[in-house]
Structures are given as C-alpha cells and as structure tokens.
C-alpha cells in the first residue's frame, strides 16, 4: 500500500531532520565549479552545487552557517560552527558566496533624507559608492536591529545598513530624526 510506504519514508525523513551534522575541515572538501558555484563532498556524499546561509544573518557573520543542497527539495547538509576554523581556500570561497547572498551596502555618510508624501528619499554614500533610493514611510522599511543598528529596505527591498547611529555626525542624526 502506498500509504504505508510514504509513512516509513516520512518517518525516515523526520529522523534525519532532527539530526545535526557538523562540517569541519577534516570531513569536507569545498570546490568552485565551472559555472561559478561551489561543490561539496562530505564523507561518502557529494553535491554538485551547494549554498551556504547564515542562521543569524544580523548577529553572526561567520558563525553558525547552514550548508544546504540546491533545488526544490533543498535540505541542510550540515552546519559550520565557525568559518574561521575551515581551510583558507574554503573561507575565501564561502565568504564570497555569503557576500553576494547578504549583499547590503553600509551607509557611511548621509547626504540628505527628504520626506515627501509618505516616501522618504535618501541620498547617501555607502561602502559600495553613492546611492539614491526611496523607502516607504509607515511600513517596515526601517528596522532597528539593535538600539544603534538600522536596516533600511527600499521599495524594491534592496537593503542598506547603518551599523552605528552613534557614529554619525549630529547633522546626519538630525536628518535621521524622523526614524529614530
């Protein structure tokens, strides 16, 4: 009966879901693929393409990474507790992937913020150059990750970050006053 079959398969999947596997430099080999992605072999298993995600994207940049297979049935292959403990090549490779995945220009200077009719127009300088973007007022466009740290999402949900409000000049803080 197919029902039964599915049941045992489901049980197996559940068991698997509850298990934790740690990936270390001793049990893994990460490689760059021809198409610009990353492959992984761990023990007996090998994956043509993997993706790496942060479990705590705002709080932990290099620790608690989840390495996952790619596709519709993406599942966790294992976790990396600390990227620093991996091989140098692996660190470079995975960090590149993380930089793209969590791409968020950091605002270093606020030139102007104008609020008009429910939208705020920002003119800022970031670590990736000068940016001008628009956010919607009244929604969740401005999120305080901590007291000092602000994450902005523009109307296309592109992200920008102010890592420390305290480090802005008083004039810049005044421009931000509406959001603090």
């Amino acid at each position, binding site marked *: 009966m197919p029902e039964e079959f599915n049941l045992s398969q*489901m*049980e197996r999947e*559940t068991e698997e*879901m*509850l298990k*934790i596997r740690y990936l270390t430099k001793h049990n893994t080999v990460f490689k760059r*693929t*021809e*198409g*610009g*992605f990353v492959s992984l072999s761990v023990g007996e298993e090998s994956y*043509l*393409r993997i993706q790496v*995600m942060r*479990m*705590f*994207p*705002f*709080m*932990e940049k290099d*620790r*608690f990474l*989840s390495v*996952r297979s790619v596709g519709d049935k993406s*599942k*966790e292959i294992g*976790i990396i*507790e600390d990227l620093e403990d991996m091989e140098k090549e692996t660190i470079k490779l995975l960090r*590149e992937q993380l*930089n*793209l*995945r*969590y*791409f*968020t220009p950091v605002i270093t200077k606020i030139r102007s913020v104008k609020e*008009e*009719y*429910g*939208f705020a*127009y920002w003119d800022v300088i970031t670590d*990736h*150059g*000068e*940016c*001008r*973007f*628009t956010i*919607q007022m*009244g*929604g*969740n466009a401005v*999120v305080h990750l901590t007291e000092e740290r602000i994450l902005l999402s*523009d*109307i*296309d*949900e*592109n*992200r920008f970050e102010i890592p420390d409000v305290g480090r802005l000049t008083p004039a810049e803080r005044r421009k931000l*006053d*509406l959001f603090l």
Partner: protein
Amino acid sequence: MKQLKIPEGIKAILMREEITESQILYKAETDMDPEGSYRDGLVILTEQMLFFFQETKRAERVHYFKGYGSTREMYANWERDWTVSQYKVLDIENMFIEPQVACSTLTIRYRGIDYCIAAFSNFCKHQVHRLIMTWEGRPFEVEEEIYCPTCGRMYPDSATRLCPRCTNRKTAFLRATKYFKPYRLKLVLMLICILAGAGLNLVWPYLTGMVLYDRILAKNQDFLIRLGIAHGDFVTALFLAVVTMLAVKITLLLLQIIQGVFTAQMVTGVVRNMEKDIFRVMGKLSISFYKNRQTGGLMTRVMSDADRVTGFYFDCAPYILINGFIILASVTVMVRINWQMTIVTLLLFPALFAISWYLRPRIWVLFGKRHRAERSVNSTVNDNLTGARVIKSFGQERLEAERYKEPNKGLLNAEIAISRQQNAFHLIYGGAQEIASFAVWGLGVYFLMSGKNMNLGTLITFTGYVGQLRGPMGFFARVYNQWADSMNSAKRMFEIMDAIPEVKEAPDALRLEKPKGDISLQNVTFGYTENKTVLKDITLKIPAGSMLGIVGRSGAGKTTIVNLISRLYDPVEGQITIDGIDIKKICFHDLRKNVAMVSQETYIFMGTVADNIAYGKPEAGRMEIFRAAKLAGAHEFIMGMPDAYDTRIGASGRELSGGERQRISIARAILANPKILILDEATASVDTETERLIQKSINYLVKGRTTISIAHRLSTLRDADYLVVIEQGKITEQGTRDELFKLHGTYYKLLELQTKALTIEHLPCSEG
C-alpha cells in the same frame, strides 16, 4: 519610458558577431557582480545567442534605485570597456532567477552545467524577469506604466499609481472640500453666523469704552442729539446703552448655538462619507498594497484619519477665518483710534510669527514621532494581551514589563518633546502680549496726561481691542490640544491598574529548584465564576516521569485542570501539590520555570525568531537555540526565511502559519527544559503530516519529564501511561488504555467514533 540605449562599445562587439540592433529580442540591465559588488552589465538575448556584457572596470557612478528622481543621469555615459561572455540559445536548457536575500542572480543550465551568469539588485529584477519570459516565449504586456505621465518620475509604489510630486497637498485639500458640497447652504449660513459673531465681538469694546465713558459718563450733549433723546436725559441714554449691550451678548450666544447645531450635523455626515470612500477604495486595491503596510497603520487610516480631517475643517479652518477677521478688523479700528499705540501693540508679532514659522517643521517631526511611538506601544500591548496565558505560564511578566518599557519610554520622550515645544510657544507669546499691553497702557496714560487726542474711554476701548487680540493670537500659537484626550485615556488606564490580582505569591514562598515532578490533586473544585463549577472534586496522582492523558469533550474542564496546575488560577477547594508541596507555597519563578506549556494557543511576540525561541530562557546561547529548533523540527522552515533566526516575526513582521507557530512553541519548551510539561491540544491545529513531525519532537521532549497531555485525537495519546476521562467536571473513567477499552464506556465510544471517522477518511470513494 526612459531606457538604456545600447552603448557604442557593445554595439561594436555585436557588430563583429554580425548582429544588428533589430535582431535583439530583449535586453536587461544588471548592476552587480557575483562577488557582491556593484558593477554594470547588460544581458542581450537574440534568436541564436545570449550575451552578457560586464564592465571590465567598475565605473564610479551614482546608483539610483526605484522611485528616485532623475533617471536621466542613470543612463548617462555608459561608454566603457566591456567583457563579454556568450552562450548558444539552442544549448540553454534552463534559465532562471535565483533570489538571494536582497539581490538575485541569473543562472542558466548550459550543456548540463549550471552557470551563474549575472548578479543584480532588486531594481533590475523586473527587466531580467522579462528577459527570461522572452526566452521562454511567454507573452507579457509591453510596458507597465510605472512612470508618472506628468513629470516623468517613477511611481514609488506602482500599486497605487500615485505620483507624490504631482498630487500635492493643495489638491488634497481641495479634494477634501468635495465632501462639504452637499452642505453648501448650511456652510454659507454658518459662515454668516461666524462673521456676524466676529463683527459683534468688535462692537463690544466700543460700547463699553467710548460710548460708556466718553459719551454718557462724560455727558456729551451731541451724543444725545444724535440719538434723539431729550436734552440732559443721560439716564435714558445709559439705559439704552445697557440694553444694546445685553442684546449684543444674547445675539452672540444665539449665533454660537446655531453654529454648533450646523457643525454637529455636518461633521457626522462628512466623516461617514469619507470613511465609506476610504473603505471602498481599500477594498479595490490589490493585495500588494496591504503587504507593504501595517494593519495598525491601515486601521488608523480608516478609524481616525477621517475624524482628523474633518476635525481640521471644523475646529481649525473656521477659526482661522474668524480669528484672521478679528485681528484684521481690530487692527483697522485700532489704527483709526490711535496709530502710534497700534504700532506699539503689533511691534513684536512679526518676530513671533517668524519664530513659529521657523519651528514649524520641528513640531511636525515631533508629532510624527509621537504617532509612531503610540503605534508601537499599542502593538506591544496588543501582543501582550493576546498572549497573557503563555506569558504567565513561562513566568515572563517581568520581561514583558521590560518590553513595554522601551516603546513606552519612546512615547514619553515624544510627549515631553512636544510639551516642551508648546510651552516655549506659550511662554514667548504670553510674554510678548504682556509687554505689548504694558507699553500700550504706558503710552496711553502719557497721551491722556499730555491731553493729546486721548480720553479715558478711548483708552479703555483701545485696551479692550488689545485684549481681544489675545485670543486669536494665542490660537495661532497653539493648534494641538491634547489635554482632554490624554486625561480620558489616563482614566481608563487607572481602572486597570487599580484592579487587584487574584492569584498572589505567598509572602514566604518556597524555592523549588530541582523537583522530581510528582503531581497530585486532592479533591480539587473550581469555577471561573462562583455559581458555576467547572471542576468537581478531582483527585489525581501523576508520578514523576510518567505521562497522563486527559480525554473528554470540549468544555469538559480539561484545560482548566492544567490551568490550575500551572497556577493561572487557584482552586476554590482542595489542594494541588508538586513533590508534596502545595503549589500556593511555591514561588512563582520556580513554579513557572518547572512547568511549561505547549498549547494550541501560540504566543508569538514582536521580535526575532531566536528571541521567540529563547522566551523561557533568555540567556540561551545561539547553539542552544539552534539545537532546540532542530529538535522541534523548526530549523528547516526557519532556514527557508531569508533572515533565518534573525527574522522579525510578530505583530509587524512576517506571518507564520499555525504549524510553524506550533513548532516554535515546542522549541521554546525544549529550550526551557521544564520538569513538568503540559501539552494542551498541541497538535490540534495542524495537518496530519505536520502533526507526525511535531509528535516526533514531542516524543523526544517528554523523555524524563512528567507530562500531561490533552487531546481530542486519541491517536495523540498513544504513549500515555495513564488516561483519565473527564465529563462535566468530573473524572468518570481512569486507567491504562487497555483498562479503559475493556470498560466499554466513554473512552471506548470515542475511540470507536474516531476509528470510524478515520476509515471514512481513507475510503477512496468518499472523495467522489
């Protein structure tokens, strides 16, 4: 719309490949590279080839995103060196966008291998999506109108198609006036009343000053002649003056009453129509409009904005007119009486208005701030009230109070800032007025003594007018008066504060640090209200480490039992003990630390997923949180969210499904690691597959704990060591599963019913 022209450099490369512009099916701009930096690129699709051009060296340019001003600059100077990669369209097996957290990549499967072609911000996503649709041969509408036809700017929000620049405040003001149209006649009448009232107000100082003092008291004969009264009969003149004064006052009162009636009639009508319109429009808007906005914000829009708009029209607009008129007329009269004194009166006002004008934006910001602070306080309270049961059972009242403190402080600060600003306003205005009126008196007395065209009555009339200026000038200084409102809310809040908690901690409460987990109920009787008993004489013993299942129909009192064990209520009669100690004597902190509940009612508060999981153990490390989530089967869906454990959920964040919420509360219980675990219909609201998953986690969870499980589905209670059946507040059956089965009682009936239902569910023909 404005679009990128193909740069000459790219044209030249295409030319070498013998491709002309007319062969291009679609082109999409990209603005990033796979290393995670901005870098311009262009994807070009033709019948035969897919090209990707990327600038060889990063150009220094301003990055414009949607909604921002002039797009002309954006397309200026695209003449750069390009690096090209190309792919045969015939060999492309698949082409798709892979979304990252805040950007995306374009991937193709080319001769069996995945290639990451290009990376781009969300700004370019639309174009790339179109490119893929072109490749798939799927049609799409030529170009959505995302640009304002008037000024050529992008609409910041294409769902509303509203250009913020072209719909300015003036038109909004005029548009609001349309709601007053049906009341045109009343409006005109009201305006007449207002003007008449203001005119009469102007007559008043003239009557009390110049007529009374300079004509009648000074025995001015010409005045009598003009009125046609007999020579010397000043008593009649006085009588006439008094009657006139009385008539003026009464007329003023009548005018006010008429005005009030008209206002009341119009306000209700206008507000109703506005709300109706807003509601209708909101119903029509697409779901994307709602996705980007908070429910709270929308509610404010419906509930109070209409009120506020009309409030402005009735409480402010007429008075701007009246007060403006009063000021203008008073000043005219004053100039005619004595222009030097008028100048002295008005000397300070231009400066005052300049100050107000300068401070205006500041006040605006302050009010916006307060509005937001209010909103966040409201959501916190809302959060808290809906989750009261869970808050209590995890013993986090103090943490909740802390959580309330933050937004509350924000609100307090906002209020203080506003008050400070308004006080400064009042002080400056009051001071200026006092100075002006002293100066007027001084100058007047000087004129009077030196006999220069000044009588006592004239002086009194003049100062009367100065006094009349006070109100209107003050009006212009303060616009927002929140006194009554705040007193009202304060009163409501005190009502709650003055209430006394029913369940109190004993003054000499005992610690219960490492309990075994023996629970016993002795003759427990309880009712939520005095005249209705829910539980009658319940006696139960649950040995440490075992699992008790409670079965019964809804409303039988199952949940009440666990509410009593976690001491959300105290029994009316009887005693509940843990390890032989009456729970009334155990301190709240220890009791709640050792008793955790997973119920069908899940409480998710505003905060990150990690915060929510660590609710019962705020000091938990990240590894612990991850492990708990993993064991609760929550890790997978959490990793499915872009911000994973840092995702903001709750009132203002992402919505979670019932099963997801349930798994978070299980993770919470795993992390809290209580000795006594209560499962109150923990899997009732989820589907069978999720239930199985949750059941697995629960099986892990119950190991080594005393567990009380309440369930409708008897299958959930498979692992229970002991079962009780509760009917109408009484235990009617108890024993192991086999014992109950043999009894052929309620348990047997329920089991039979559910087995039957299950069979029906699985009959293939039942679907047809």
